């Protein structure tokens, strides 16, 4: 066992997989002292990787300064730098990785590359006290049902094409909805869905344990364009179908693994409708339902810092010469010895 660090050790976590640039200071005993963030908002369309990376480079100094300031921790007091090493958009990842490498070598502290998906799971566990959950991780870039089994977070089901959040985003954009700071497309769709009355039939695609959302997205846009219902009705129907798919696969994983908890994490975890559906299933199986708090749901630096601490405490670090980003780094490729160390 590695020596346990005293609680006044701090880790700086840097997150930059997609549109968010985040930096956070987390103490080794699991307190989130700061969680600064600046999101790239495209003027039109989706995330342009190069433009997002440019944004990250521009705001990095400001966001890092804010993270240190809010935490009242000086850079010199940091004993570990963690960064999001993948999966994600290459240019964005590289921007965060460059900042992390520079800081780690300047401060002469170890560097640890964190798998972004592991970050979402671990911060959810930290915030909710879940120990061994079936996790539904849903965001703009990922849709994964996983559970810990023999050293790794195993994937039980996942999307075969686009992610859940991506489906909502692309649909919202296609029907002319606007996102605002603090109210991303997912939240806008959720608001409208609450006013929906009529259910419009849309394709429900579960293949074994896997999911597909691209056909659903197209059908929803077509339903809107051919006036099958109001935009509220389509939002309502889209959510009902998509979330039922997610819930069905989560239930299968839960029935198979018999885990004691269900954890909902990632940006789409903020959706109340999805929360309520998963809760029904968790209750039926006698599992505790846990949902990541709103401020830790979307991509953030704190989750990277915390996952970095867990990895570092079990003897994992990433030498700078091996700190290349890995845009297709799969969740189940990551050994997670800290989970069994408990």
């Amino acid at each position, binding site marked *: 066992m590695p020596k346990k660090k005293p609680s006044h050790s701090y880790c700086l976590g840097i997150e930059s997989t997609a549109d968010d640039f985040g930096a956070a200071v987390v103490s080794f005993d699991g307190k989130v002292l700061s969680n600064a963030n600046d999101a790239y908002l495209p003027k039109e369309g989706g995330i342009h990787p190069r433009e997002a990376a440019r944004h990250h480079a521009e705001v990095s100094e400001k966001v890092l300064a804010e993270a240190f300031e809010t935490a009242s921790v000086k850079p010199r007091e940091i004993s570990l730098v963690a960064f999001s090493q993948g999966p994600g958009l290459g240019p964005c990842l590289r921007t965060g990785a460059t900042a992390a490498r520079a800081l780690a070598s300047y401060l002469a502290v170890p560097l640890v590359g964190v798998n972004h998906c592991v970050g979402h799971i671990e911060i959810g566990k930290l915030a909710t006290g879940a120990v061994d959950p079936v996790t539904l991780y849903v965001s703009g870039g990922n849709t994964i049902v996983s559970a810990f*089994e023999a050293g790794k977070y195993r994937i039980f089901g996942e999307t075969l094409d686009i992610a859940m959040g991506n489906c909502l985003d692309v649909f919202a954009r296609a029907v002319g909805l606007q996102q605002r700071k603090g109210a991303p497309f997912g939240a806008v769709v959720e608001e409208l869905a609450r006013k929906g009355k009529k259910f419009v039939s849309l394709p*429900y695609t579960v*293949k074994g*344990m896997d999911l597909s959302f691209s056909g659903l997205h197209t059908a929803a846009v077509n339903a809107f364009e051919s006036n099958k219902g109001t935009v509220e009705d389509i939002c309502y129907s889209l959510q009902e179908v998509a979330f*039922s798919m997610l819930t069905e696969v989560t239930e299968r994983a839960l029935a*198979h693994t018999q885990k004691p908890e269900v954890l909902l994490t990632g940006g789409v975890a903020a959706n109340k409708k999805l929360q309520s559906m998963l809760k029904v299933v968790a209750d039926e199986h006698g599992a505790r339902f846990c949902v990541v708090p709103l401020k830790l749901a979307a991509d953030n630096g704190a989750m990277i810092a915390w996952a970095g601490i867990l990895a570092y405490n079990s003897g994992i670090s990433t030498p700078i010469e091996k700190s290349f980003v890995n845009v297709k780094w799969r969740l189940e490729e990551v050994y997670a010895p800290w989970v069994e160390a408990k």
Partner: protein
Amino acid sequence: MRLGWRQNSVVLIKKGAEASLYLETWHDRKVIMKRRLPKKYRIPELDNMIRSQRTTHEPHIMHKAKEAGVPTPTILMVDVADANIVMEFVEGKQVKEVLDAVSKEERLSLCRLIGKMIGRLHKNGIIHGDLTTSNMILTPYGKVVFVDFGLSERSVELEPKGVDLHLMKRTLNSTHYKHAKECFKAIMDGYAESVGEKETKQVTAKIREIEKRGRYVADRE
């Protein structure tokens, strides 16, 4: 319950996440009733649609399997509105129970037969979706009846065929580990009898690729 159900001998034999199986007596016959119970988390419009679609799909694909020369239980009644399927109770033993108990010769010929049947399914564009030894029943007459087409789909692509057989291989490795290697080889020999050497080579390469992907590692039975 309708249509002359006798409720006196209803036994729940399998409770799945998606459907439950009951052993019942129906018109003096021993039958299996597969029920897809409503899911509370889904709105009724959607729930009814999904359950009735699957209740229609499953017997249909079982019928297609029979056409392909693969024994499946006889369907006695399909109640789409209530999402119930009544089918023949197949007398025999699950392959899971017999595979390790019989002689090497019998085991290999059983595996060849299983492989031949899987080959017939795939050749006819049927992906079983849950090829485990508990979903195959060896009858006293030496036939292997394939059951539980709940996760099945129609496809002629290589990927789902590979996934199908990969699950078979995994089941052998986890449940019948003593004989897993020889059993899987015999299955692939039987498979080649149905689909030919060329296709078998492609599928075998696909299985290897899926293994390397490291996905589907977590065992699901």
